[in-house]
């Protein structure tokens, strides 16, 4: 284990204490609200040529939600990272405005959904859970107790869509459950649970995994009894996902597993093994499953497929056309045609942003995501306990991977796989799960940034014959 974690007093030894920076957070939140509310006003002006009538009500609601979150942080996590909440609030606000803009376009075509209204409800619910998480989870290490419980829960959740009656197949992927009026993507929750499970298991078994075992071809292979449970766990979740034809999530979980294994064992060999496994698996899938072959070919030659064969290339090609059409500064709200891309409000929301707000906004969005990942990994670096480090790394990596997979898919950098864009996309499960993720990250960062408890550093009060403090 690294020095920081091993020596609880090291931060005070180095003479550096994190400041709370709650004022900075509040200031950044004002900026984030300006993005969200400003975008909402711009949509009204661009599409309907008037400032939305409910701007004050809408803005007030957003502001209230954000301020409540801020106040709760002040009380229960005063040392939490001050950047995370504003970044997330800005993304969520921008997403709401873009979804609202797409709603207006759909309304003009005579198919009104009111996605933005629903998304605002989800956001409210998400923030409620965010607050609840911060209030109930006073120390993230409590989660370690649920290592196996959450693993089991994740598997059950991932299995649920396969259960007849409550499972639902939507556009080829069987990843939805519906209970009465509620539709839910359990995979979104499962990813949080899996991070907890992996972290809990790895932090206990990391030494065994790293040191015990045999060396085969430059790679230290761990003992089966150490690797077995987690490998099985990974195989089950991956298998379920493949069975559900959810390529995006499969990729996400595989990547997450790999990253966490690497961080826990500090063996780069795992990355090599993982990469080889990925290439092998991908090749096999390409050769064995026709729908994967097709997906891959469409990625390579989207324009050859455009307008042919059920038009599977329609989405990526229209997304490219839209983004090219947007150019550097975009067409402006109401001037583009982002609804040409099916699911512009969910998976393809980045294409809608690229079309109407241009490369400038796409860059800003990618940078905001980058900031979230950066804050998460920084938290992992300064965190004092191994479990917290692993959870923070896992959550940060899942963010990075998800953004890469979905934005890369939309911009045709990698083959298209269905995933939501965190905080931007329309979708309750994703939004709520991501708010909880942020709450957990804030909790870990609060612990990490809090001044280390003063151990008996004051040697003066103790006699000369007292025990020497051993500084490691």
């Amino acid at each position, binding site marked *: *284990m690294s020095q920081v974690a091993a020596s609880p007093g090291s931060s005070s030894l180095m003479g550096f204490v994190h400041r709370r920076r709650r004022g900075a957070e509040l200031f950044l939140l004002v900026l984030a609200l300006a993005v969200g509310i400003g975008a909402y006003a711009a949509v009204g002006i661009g599409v309907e040529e008037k400032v939305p009538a409910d701007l004050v009500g809408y803005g007030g609601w957003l502001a209230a939600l954000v301020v409540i979150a801020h106040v709760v942080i002040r009380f229960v996590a005063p040392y939490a990272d001050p950047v995370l909440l504003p970044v997330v609030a800005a993304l969520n606000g921008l997403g709401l405005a873009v979804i609202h803009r797409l709603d207006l376009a759909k309304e003009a075509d005579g198919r009104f959904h009111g996605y933005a209204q629903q998304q605002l409800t989800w956001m409210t619910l998400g923030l409620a859970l965010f607050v609840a998480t911060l209030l109930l989870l006073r120390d993230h290490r409590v989660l370690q107790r649920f290592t196996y419980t959450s693993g089991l829960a994740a598997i059950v959740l991932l299995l649920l869509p396969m259960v007849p009656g409550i499972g639902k197949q939507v556009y080829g992927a069987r990843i939805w459950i519906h209970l009465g009026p509620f539709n839910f993507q359990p995979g979104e929750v499962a990813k949080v649970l899996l991070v907890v499970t992996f972290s809990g298991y790895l932090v206990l078994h990391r030494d065994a995994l790293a040191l015990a075992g045999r060396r085969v071809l430059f790679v230290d292979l761990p003992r089966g009894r150490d690797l077995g449970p987690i490998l099985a766990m990974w195989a089950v979740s991956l298998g379920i996902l493949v069975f559900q034809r959810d390529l995006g999530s499969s990729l996400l979980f595989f990547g997450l597993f790999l990253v966490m294994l690497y961080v826990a064992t500090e063996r780069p060999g795992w990355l090599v093994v993982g990469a080889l496994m990925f290439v092998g698996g991908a090749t096999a899938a390409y050769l064995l499953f026709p729908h994967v072959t097709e997906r891959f070919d469409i990625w390579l030659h989207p324009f050859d497929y455009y307008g042919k064969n059920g038009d599977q290339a329609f989405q990526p090609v229209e997304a490219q056309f839209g983004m090219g059409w947007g150019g550097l500064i975009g067409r402006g709200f109401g001037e583009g045609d982002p609804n040409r891309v099916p699911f512009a409000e969910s998976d393809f929301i980045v294409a809608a942003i690229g079309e109407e707000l241009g490369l400038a906004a796409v860059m800003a969005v990618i940078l905001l995501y980058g900031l979230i990942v950066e804050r998460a990994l920084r938290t992992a670096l300064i965190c004092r306990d191994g479990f917290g480090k692993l959870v923070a790394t896992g959550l940060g990596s899942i963010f990075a991977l998800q953004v890469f997979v979905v934005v890369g898919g939309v911009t045709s950098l990698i083959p298209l796989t269905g995933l939501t864009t965190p905080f931007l996309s329309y979708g309750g499960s994703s939004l709520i799960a991501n708010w909880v993720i942020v709450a957990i990250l804030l909790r870990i960062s609060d612990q990490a940034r809090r001044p280390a408890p003063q151990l008996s550093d004051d040697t003066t009060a103790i006699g000369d014959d007292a025990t020497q403090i051993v500084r490691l």
Partner: protein
Amino acid sequence: MNKPIRTISIFCLLLFLALMINATYLQYWKAGQLNDDPQNRRVLVAAYSRERGAIQVGSKAVAQSVESDDQYKFQRTYPKPLEYAPLTGWFSYYSATGIEQTRNDVLSGEDSRLFVTKLVDLLSNDRTKGGNVKLTIDPAAQDAAYNGLKALGPDVQGSVVALEPNTGKILAMVSLPTYDPNKLASHDLSSVQDTFTRLDKDPTQPLLNRAIQTRLPPGSTFKILTAAAAIDKGLYKADDPVPGGVTFQLPQTSGVTGEIDNEGRSCGANGARIPFTQAMGQSCNTTFAQLAIEVGAEDMAKTAEGFGFNSHYFDDLTPQAESVFPTDANEPQIGQSGIGQFEVAATPLQMAMVAAGIANGGTVMRPYLVDEEQSADLDVIQKTEPQELSQAVSATTASEVTKLMVATVNEGTASPAAIQGIQVAGKTGTAQSGQPDKPPYAWFVSFAPAENPEVAVAVMIQSADIPRGEIAGGTYGGPIAKAVMEAVIK
């Protein structure tokens, strides 16, 4: 664990860098290519929604964009749809033709020469407005041509082209049957498709611009060219006698198939010589077949190509069909070619150029339809300068041929085109369609005033509801040509 976390951080940085580079590639470097993709509906819709410039004739617009309440914001309208359809073409959601297509850059506002205006638009957040295209058409001549041709009946197929001889300006261009471009520019897209399919399948080919796309044997109007070739070669002058005859047996042939006659017109006895004016005035096939043979295939082809045969010279509308004159004809073939038969085929525009070339002292000007391109603020960004296409024959030859054509109007078959007080030069033509159930094609070409020509006209009637015997060029084509010339001169 911090070392791997730092590695992961760098890995994440690379992922995000890749995303940013790819987004930049897509939205900056590849954007132009994406926007040029013909499958890109966004660009089409945007083009379709733009306020395009007007196509103007005189001071009036024959195609313009007016505001509409629907998603496309502007509706393209054609105030005189039927008359100008072959020129304006149409601008539909699916395609564009005519000037709408060839001058799309200016009309749509994409032309780089409009960039100054565009930059201003960008700063003032104005929607780009297209520039205007001003045509060379003389509205009075166009009206005369259109109304004259249309008066031949509802089923008429034909074309009229009028040129300004010393510039090449197209003063009138009419093609019948025609269509209503307003129906193709409609925002009701399914009706647009239905209309297009119907027009496209119509056997009378209303979408065809016969003036530049229909090649037919020019018949006797080609004798102008044969006469010009013979005079230019120094064989004859306008007042020289030329070989005549009731019939003429083409060399290397025997029997009726190789025998040329004059359908009863007075062209002297076989072996006799007749005045050149009589040969032209009576449109003597026997004479001109002999003249063509005397000139020879090579020089005939040279003269024909001087007037524009076998070449491409017109891009203002597309596609221009190249008129044809055989380049390696043998003696009997060149004899037939000399009276505008065999493989000779010309568009109405080509025959107008023949008349205009003679009228302009033998200098053939490149025909053009677009006079000016203007920015939306009416600043002229380009004015077409008249351009010489070739010196087909000498000025002397041209004036000799003019004498013959004047005589043809004054005393011969082209008399219907005569205008009181103005010397008109003209020539009729009737060409065999080659199919027994199809009536012959009627031609008429002329220019006026003969001494200082202002206008040259070609009229072509492909088919009309007129008795077969009366199809002869002068009867129907002559009055139309006369009306057009009068419209220009007066």
